[in-house]
């Protein structure tokens, strides 16, 4: 079947061709922002880092692993976060906790020997937090995650076990 092409674009009118109206409209917008900022002191920017924005409690920032009263991580290396992670950024190696450092007995006999999160791969979807049966892995409110090298983007267990108050 032969295809029939129809041109639906319209030619410019005379008033559109000289652009005068559009230029005046644009200048009015600039004037509005100038008056708002210079005379009425209404700003859209903030003086970061002296002033900080408040984010919602549900904001998903840098990961952390919650710790119990003995400062032992709640994680039992069940691999559920690694299983559910769509970005495959979590790498866990499990092991047995030494009984000398384990006042909780059988509840915490399994421990993560290694728990690495590659923050560059992470898409901050929060699935790991949802999958965790022990409420161990969580996403904090921390949003300042700028780094100077790729190695720093690899969060290890020592970093993840940092003390976080509330949601950080």
């Amino acid at each position, binding site marked *: 079947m032969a295809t029939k092409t129809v041109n639906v674009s319209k030619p410019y009118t005379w008033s559109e061709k000289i652009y005068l109206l559009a230029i005046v409209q644009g200048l009015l917008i600039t004037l509005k922002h100038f008056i708002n900022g210079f005379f009425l002191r209404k700003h859209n920017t903030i003086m970061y880092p002296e002033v900080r924005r408040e984010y919602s409690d549900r904001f998903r920032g840098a990961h952390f692993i919650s710790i119990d009263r003995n400062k032992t991580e709640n994680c039992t290396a*069940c691999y559920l976060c690694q299983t559910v992670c769509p970005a495959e950024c979590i790498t866990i190696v*499990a*092991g047995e906790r030494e009984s000398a450092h384990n006042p909780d007995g*059988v*509840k915490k*006999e399994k421990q993560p020997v290694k728990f690495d999160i590659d923050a560059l791969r992470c898409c901050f979807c929060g699935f790991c937090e949802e999958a965790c*049966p022990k409420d161990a892995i969580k996403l904090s409110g921390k949003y300042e995650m700028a780094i100077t090298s790729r190695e720093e983007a690899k969060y290890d267990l020592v970093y993840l076990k940092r003390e976080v108050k509330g949601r950080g």
Partner: protein
Amino acid sequence: MCNNIKIDGEAVEFVQGDTILQAAERAGKGHLIPRYCYHPGLPIAGTCRMCTVEVEKMPKLMTACSTIATDGMVVNTKSERVLKSRAGVMEFLLTNHPLDCPVCDKAGECELQDNNYRYGPVTSSFLEEKRVYSKAATKKLSPNITLNMNRCVHCERCVRFTEEVVKSCDLMMINRGWHKELTLSDEKLGLTSNYQGCLSDICPVGAHTFNDFRFKKRSWFLEQYPSVCDRCSKGCNISVHSENGVVYRFKPHYNEKVNGHWICDEGRLSYHQVMDATRIVKPLLAHEGSLKSTSWELAGAAVNYLITSASKVKVVIGTDATNEEMKYIQASLPDKFGKKFEFSSYCGYGEDKKLDHMLMMKDKTPNSNGASACKLNHLDGDLVGDCDVAILIRYGRSGVPQVKNCKKIIIIGVWTQKEIGSFGTNVEVVLPGLATTEKSGTYINCDGVSQNFSPAIAHLGEGLAVNSIISFFKK
């Protein structure tokens, strides 16, 4: 006489003496009847009450595992009474189960998990505190097995296994009801059998866990492929559990003619040799007194030079090579280089005999019978010697022969650094091959059963099958 019972309205044939559950299994309807204490390799106990079904004209629900099927029986596995009974059993089992699935190694292949998803109640009416065995919360029964008594559902499969199958009577139940507890018959001896890994296989929950696999991997990550165990001449059928080319465990694969449902611990742990860090996985060539890694082409050219310049070459093939490999080597080498070869096989374990009443054999190589079927004579003594070049072909299982009066050795197959070190500086070329789990082929076991297998995992190194290796020896 026609033997028929009806399961959920469908006629099913059975053999005289079958129970309802066995008849259902025979007809491929085993999944309709959940069970804990029943295991096809063990005697019937009828203690868990999970397999109860409704049989017409019988007033109460019957246990499918222990009720003998009779002609004309009408069985219902899905009636409301049955489902209510199953939910009740599940609720009782879960009253004391710790539900520590995140920590438990059985999670993902646990029968309690599976049955609870299918038949369990959503809620529990048990509000009291769960029973906790403080002493046996985690107890090492032996270097191989850890017991977590809190997870136990008292099916007694393990007790029946030690009593009836391996006959070591290591385990027994003490106390009754709420306090029922699994203990060792002799605390000092611990578990004594060589089939301890089977305890963790048959345990429907995570009470028995195999220490070698404990906390290594979650079961749902593992790919399973069937293979044949090459740790002894029995050739037990196994399934190889691996992820990304790394083997994490061997599990038995049912074969009525060879191993039934079981394998020994030695075979179960033999995957460590395949995954050995010192295994040679790159072709090596002797250069200035030491072995340096090289390319296949260079190694092949070196072998070509060694064989063409020699007048007498002795080839020793380990009895861990497959039939196909033995035949190929015997045919292709004379074809390429002429009649200067003398072939023999080498086992290194002496006369084969049974070590116990179950599976273990003295000959720790898989294919001694295959070597005689391929018309290979066993090496006289343990010595190879009086030749220009010796070619030793071996796949990690047979013994290492001694070499005398021969300065040039070519090594092919699965070897570790240590095994090659025994030849000193006489080794000229090392050509890595494929282990049993990585290749396909045929073994003939001690009873004459011929079993062929396919690759279960991909080889991560540069090792090649023997026909590819020989193709580098250009004429």
